[in-house]
């Protein structure tokens, strides 16, 4: 009888052991999570089980960030932090493993930063070893720390009167700076030291455009109305506009932040739509960030494909207010922007303007390979050559 009981327990235990998934399997389940709760039922069980793992699972989880979507990355992070927190309290969290991962720039930038922050809980001095070399790191947060460090060094040099060295240090800091606050903190002293800085070039703002408008946007209906430029971008064409014939005009903005003020470039029309077109020459097939700031409703096409639009008015304008991932082809790419002004009469509702820049995922400008213009190109709904 006792033998039978022991055998039964052994079989049951064996079954239980056989059923436990490995961290790699649990990670795969978690990486099946998709939109609107897809994959959640299995992922809820998987993340619960994975979170109970010991520190040996951490490298597997870090590797799993490769090709993980932002959503999946948060699931992985949840498990990672539960394990790391427990491991740290048990003195089982490996600083060497974390530092090795954080240093590897081929790895997922966000995961590297997470590993680094956990490393700091074990070794606060790690920042001195790692950060200075990270001015051009793929992780925007690592870059930010490195830029801050170099800028402080430049400030010190300037304070001591070593202007030539300070300029060099500021220039180095600027080479990594992608956030406006840091850029401002560097450009101000550089200019005071007699240096020139082209902010448009630094950020990658598109400054040269062709504009056509106004078309009608009474009651906001123009947002969805397909006006001729959406069918064909023909710079020689003229169309019936909101109240008169309209034609394309050339416009270049000198604003440091690439702001195109449509109210000045045209007139402060209300209830109006303007289209803005430009070309961007890409060195290769690549996916870039097109980052837009505007207080107006807008739509964006690249090479005839509508990428995104937002029907929102006067709720703010900031640099990088909107980020759109855009596929570019090697060579010439056509960018078309629709910018709508509504009819609000409040003082704060009169801006009709936009700024557009092209950069990588970290925010660093991707300069055009060459600049080309053409007099006619085909619009959003036709095939490009």
């Amino acid at each position, binding site marked *: 009888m006792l033998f039978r009981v022991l055998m039964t327990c052994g079989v049951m235990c064996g079954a239980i052991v056989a059923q436990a998934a490995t961290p790699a399997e649990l990670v795969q389940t978690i990486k099946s*999570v998709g*939109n*609107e*709760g897809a994959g*959640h*039922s299995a*992922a*809820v069980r998987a*993340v*619960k089980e994975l*979170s109970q793992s010991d520190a040996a699972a951490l490298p597997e989880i870090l590797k799993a960030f490769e090709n993980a*979507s*932002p*959503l999946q*990355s*948060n*699931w992985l*992070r*949840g*498990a990672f*932090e*539960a394990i790391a*927190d427990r491991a740290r309290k048990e003195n089982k969290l490996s600083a060497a493993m974390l530092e090795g991962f954080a240093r590897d720039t081929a790895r997922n930038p*966000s995961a590297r930063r*997470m590993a680094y922050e956990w490393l700091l809980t074990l070794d606060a001095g790690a920042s001195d070893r790692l950060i200075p070399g990270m001015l051009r790191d793929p992780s925007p*947060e690592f870059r*930010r720390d490195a830029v801050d460090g170099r800028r402080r060094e430049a400030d010190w040099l300037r304070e001591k009167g070593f202007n030539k060295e300070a300029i060099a240090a500021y220039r180095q800091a600027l080479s990594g700076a992608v*956030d406006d*606050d840091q850029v401002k903190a560097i450009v101000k002293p550089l200019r005071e030291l007699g240096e020139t800085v082209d902010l448009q070039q630094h950020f990658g703002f598109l400054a040269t455009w062709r504009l056509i408008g106004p078309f009608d946007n009474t009651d906001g209906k123009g947002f969805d109305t397909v006006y001729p430029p959406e069918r064909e971008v023909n710079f020689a064409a003229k169309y019936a506009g909101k109240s008169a014939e309209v034609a394309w005009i050339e416009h270049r903005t000198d604003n440091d932040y690439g702001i195109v003020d449509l109210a000045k470039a045209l007139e402060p029309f209300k209830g109006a739509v303007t289209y803005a077109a430009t070309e961007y020459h890409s060195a290769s097939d690549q996916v870039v960030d097109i980052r837009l700031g505007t207080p107006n409703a807008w739509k964006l096409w690249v090479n005839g494909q509508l990428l*995104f639009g*937002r*029907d*929102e*008015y006067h*709720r*703010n*304008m*900031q640099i990088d*207010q*909107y980020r759109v991932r855009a596929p570019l082809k090697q060579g010439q790419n056509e960018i078309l922007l629709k910018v709508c002004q509504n009819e609000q009469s409040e003082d704060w509702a009169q801006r009709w303007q936009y700024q557009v820049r092209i950069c990588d995922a970290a925010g660093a400008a991707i300069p055009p390979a060459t600049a080309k213009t053409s007099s006619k190109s085909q619009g959003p709904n036709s095939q490009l050559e």
Partner: protein
Amino acid sequence: MPCSPWCGALVVGLALVVPAKAADWRQFRGTATTSVADDAPLLTSWSESENIAWKADLPGRGLSSPIVVRDNVVVTCSSGYHQDRLHVLCFNAANGTLRWERQFWATGRTISHPKTCVASSSPASDGQRIFALYSSNDLACLDLNGELQWYRGLTVDFPNASNSLGMASSPVFAGNTLVVQVENDSQQSLAVGINPLTGESRWTMQRPSRANWTSPAVMPGSNPDDDVVLLQSSAGISAINPLTGAELWKYTDGAATIPSSAVQGRTLYAVSHGITALHFPAGSANVEQLWRAERLNPATASPVAYGERLYLLNGAGVLVCADLKDGAVTWQLRLEGPFTSSPVVAKDHLYAFNEAGIGQVVKLGDERGEVVGRGELNDLILATPAIANGALYVRSDKTLWKIAAK
């Protein structure tokens, strides 16, 4: 978009919800969304050196209210230059020690007005789980030990669900469902009912395409199946069954998009044309308008119904007391404003924190209100406090305070 046909294909919460303890404060404006905790009196004076049981440092920024679940005080924060680092922190209510902190990365937009931030929505709890929502429409569910249960990115699901000024509606838990308003100027303006166990949507409902920063109110039923959730928007008020998303009744005469309406029993004091009292008898599909008082105009802070009175803070920083029977003003009291956080009430005392961090304690009488206490925290206070177990929990960007005897 009508209520999803999936309304009927649900897994009802398997009785895993822990009944609310009287001492818990489980969501914005409390477990019952009334802004009232009447189980114990609170202190009426404090300063940075007096009557602060403990205080704890917080990272980044936050306008969300703390919540209290058993002996856990939970706070959300957002940090980083782009406000894209999302934090959930859990403190021991007794002594303020940090039990755990978890971080996530925003998957949605993190742009907001400078006054607000990404950690603007207050978290909610069913007693076992914490549901943390952010202006980026990231929604994390963790258990009370900080272990992730599930994660949703509602802007990932609905790419145009966002607001360049930031979003701030807080989720509510009722009817074994987490109800989240994701309302904004685009066509992807929605309310979603989410299964707390799995994070899957039970239903998705199209809402008016207009920015909206209000939070739902709850009319609790005798059991969770009878709970009603009231969704407020520029169009008015919708009363829904939170489990199914079915609309029970609708008031379509418009409502405010910043201060949230007050609820008491089966009556909603809607911030609409001043205040409009709407009564919804149990078992009925008809809403009855009891009265309307156009001179009652709450500013940013949400009004509170307590006893037989309605209390609201107007744009001039005046606390107005009105009769719940007919909306008639019974007394007014000028306080030191301005106010962004909403007042809360405990044992006949109303607590209002202005932006300078001055907390004013008003004894609520039938004929008049009287400031009987004051406390200064010398910090910018924009978040509505929480009350639990005889303590007041107040947060700024950088600090969480427990105001209670040590």
